[in-house]
């Protein structure tokens, strides 16, 4: 439920534009080898207005949420739009009516935990890890939460309130090896506040045992052989591929900026086995990891099919870009902070699962790699991508071999996706990453395992 009552300012809005009250809050704790080194909270709140005038936008924001602040930002945003409109070509094609209404609140229903209780949880977890895995070189624990509380009011009649929260426990473990320290991480959590996402003892035990097993293997790991190789990208890598390599190239602002996807609409860009969707809030009858019901322009969020059976079908749009392309706006414009303007952003982007069993896919490779986890990733206007690979194994004659040291993979996505020959029948999502594009943004990424050809870095 909104605490700001923005609707009281609706009579002040005219023309084409929006008002947004917005508060971001963070909680963050960090512990290295049992020592608490980070203990921080922050809150940042304010009000913004954005006004469109003859082809130009004006934006203004102040760190205050009040009726007087609404007057100030609306006046400044109008002045800015008018000033800039003298330097742009007239654009008066109608934009989609921004009239979504609704309220979504992911605040915890559980009792709020104190800092002391969270630190106790971390102390206990660290002590257990130290006792169970005494050979670790270092242990780093992070517990953090990000809350994004917003209310958007538009001239089209939209009034949308949301309190989206996500929180995670991250555990990094490292071991010494002949190649220097190697590390792995395990992440627990997702949508909701810390109180909803602290993992149970059983979950911690199971997942850390799995991560420690990978770490021991990695300590004896080998460098990947550089060059083009046949690989299985497990679901986390398929997810980042969907987001970085394809998703970004099909954001309409990047299409207008020269992205190669601008030439491919309606064309076969991937194997017919590949269907890729940017989901709004529900995927395959389940809630998405970071559901978005309406965007910061007041548009109801709807799924956008980017690639269907290998054919490029749609771009992602803001209201303005949709009007320029003559396409439908499906709610992709989101802003990170109160003083940020909405940009075209992905929500929950995934390659859909296929028919193959992962075991059969591994068995089908004579000499290649099974890549399980990624670090950072970057995309390009050419759809050339690069992902850090932090966990992987050799595949020799259909069986998993030695673990890999950290490496990277790259390829041109619209070429690489044509080499996909198998898609597994199960998919998973991740949601802890933050996408960067002028502003940061929360995003979900998902996918099955896929078999394809990629270029590996390495020795």
């Amino acid at each position, binding site marked *: 439920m909104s605490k700001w009552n923005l609707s009281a300012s609706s009579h002040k809005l005219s023309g084409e534009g929006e008002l947004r009250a917005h508060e971001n809050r963070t909680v963050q704790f960090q512990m290295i080898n049992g*020592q608490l080194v980070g*203990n921080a909270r922050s809150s940042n709140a304010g009000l913004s207005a954005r006004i469109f005038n003859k082809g130009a936008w*004006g934006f203004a*924001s102040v760190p205050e949420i009040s009726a007087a602040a609404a007057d100030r930002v609306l006046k400044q945003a109008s002045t800015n739009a008018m000033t*800039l409109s003298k330097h742009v070509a007239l654009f008066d094609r109608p934009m989609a009516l921004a009239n979504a209404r609704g309220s979504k609140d992911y605040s915890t229903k559980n009792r709020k935990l104190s800092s002391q209780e969270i630190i106790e949880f971390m102390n206990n977890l660290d002590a257990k890890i130290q006792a169970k895995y005494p050979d670790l070189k270092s242990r780093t624990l992070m517990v953090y939460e990000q809350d994004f509380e917003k209310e958007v009011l538009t001239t089209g009649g939209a009034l949308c309130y949301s309190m989206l929260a996500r929180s995670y426990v991250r555990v990094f473990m*490292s071991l010494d090896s002949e190649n*220097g*320290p190697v590390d792995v991480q395990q992440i627990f959590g997702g949508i909701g506040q810390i109180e909803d996402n602290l993992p149970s003892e059983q979950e911690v035990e199971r997942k850390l045992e799995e991560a420690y097993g990978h770490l021991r293997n990695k300590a004896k790991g080998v460098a990947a052989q550089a060059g083009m190789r046949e690989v299985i990208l497990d679901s986390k890598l398929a997810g980042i591929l969907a987001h970085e390599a394809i998703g970004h190239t099909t954001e309409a602002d990047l299409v207008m900026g020269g992205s190669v996807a601008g030439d491919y609409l309606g064309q076969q860009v991937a194997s017919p086995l590949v269907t890729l969707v940017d989901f709004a809030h529900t995927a395959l009858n389940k809630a998405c990891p970071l559901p978005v019901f309406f965007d910061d322009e007041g548009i109801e969020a709807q799924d956008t099919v980017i690639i269907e059976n290998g054919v490029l079908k749609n771009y992602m749009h803001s209201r303005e870009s949709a009007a320029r392309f003559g396409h439908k706006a499906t709610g992709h414009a989101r802003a990170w902070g109160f*003083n940020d303007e909405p940009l075209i952003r992905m929500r929950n982007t995934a390659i859909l699962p296929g028919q193959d069993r992962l075991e059969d896919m591994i068995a089908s490779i004579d000499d290649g790699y099974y890549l399980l986890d990624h670090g950072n990733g970057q995309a390009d206007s050419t759809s050339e991508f690069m992902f850090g690979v932090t966990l992987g194994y050799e595949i020799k004659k259909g069986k998993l071999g030695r673990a890999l040291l950290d490496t990277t993979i*790259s390829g041109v996505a619209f070429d690489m996706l044509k080499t996909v020959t198998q898609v597994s029948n199960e998919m998973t999502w991740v949601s802890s990453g933050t996408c960067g594009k002028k502003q940061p943004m929360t995003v979900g990424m998902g996918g099955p395992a896929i078999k394809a050809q990629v270029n590996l870095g390495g020795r």
Partner: protein
Amino acid sequence: MQDLNRVAEQALSSLKKSGAGKAHVEVGFREVHELNVEAGRFTLLRTTVDQGVSMRAITEQKQASLSGNQFDDAVISALAEQTVATAKAGAPDEAFDIAPLQGPKKFRSGPEEANLDLMTERAEEFLNETKIRFPKIILEAVTIQFIKRHRVIANSNGVHFETNQNDFEYSAMFTAKDGKKTSSFNYTGSSTTDFSIPMMKAAGMETLLEQSSAQVNSRSLDGKFVGDVIITPHCLPTFIGGLTGHLHVGSLLKGQSVYQDKLNQQIAAPNFCLRAKPLDERFSLPRYVTGDGHMSENIDIVQNGVLKTFMLDQYGANKLKKTRAKADDSHHVIDPGDQSFKDMVRSVKRGLLFCRFSNGSPAANGDVSGVAKNSFYIENGEIRFPVSECMVSGNIPQMFMNIRAISKETLSFGTSELPWMHVGDVTVSGK
């Protein structure tokens, strides 16, 4: 605008009243005027105002940091109470501390007010010149800002600094297109106090636009070879970060730094000097005060290849019982060398002009790999053609040991100044 000194005083006194043994506060105000260009046309003019107060309290050697952007008296008092309560919930560490008595001192840099006419003029001039001289270029995103900053830093030891620092900052991101042929995107930018130099003439903009125009015809390389790379000033920050990242408390505390025991030892070729120069008068935005509240000084990080300091703040220095760095890890300057860029290219038998690196996070031992973006193949001393789908692998600490030459020429980005660096024995692999 609120009186920041009054807010800082109130924050300090509220922290003490709430039971903080030691207290550090920073109060800031920031106003940004920002002109945006997308796909070659003006799209948005923004005026944003923000403020913030961050409080750090140490009580019973336990510490917490909280921040907010509301300055009402009641909010400041509540934030102070919460900061102390959060600190009390923490764990004690003898290394937590605040800066000793310094100041009071005021610093000022840059122009007083935004000049929107000048910003628009510079933007239009850049858009027009790009359109005429580089017709294949699409200016995907251009941002031109005037940023006004006012900051007060104070602590319970009597530290009091006040800074007023304004500057213009700009960046351009672009792609070239020729029919269906598309280049990789590239970008550059700088900051300036007077905006007297056109955007086209600063931060290597002209060169990058020319390079991107050529990169619509990039080719992949066959196979793999070990060769040389000439790392451009635009690409160098990735590698500087790969070096200095090992000098920070996080890496040292985990025992994972490759430079753990290398102070005063050779970690790079003897022609390599890396400095942090927060007070360099050539820079548009000096950093007068470090993040933990000490007066900054210009420092040598690596002198003639020898590591001269770890980049430790007060906490890191106390924790590891080492010396605190008298500057933050920013405002980097690499001393120019004695070879011209042209001679550097002539000396490469086989390798790359390495212009941008899309790389994975380096492994703990410094191994790194990634895609050489916007780069050119060099053979027998000549730049031959732009490359695509080309990967580079190496070990960052080893690359600094393998520096063959550093260029006479340098590029300034407003808060850093960097040369071209010729490095040997790097693995380059094509398709």
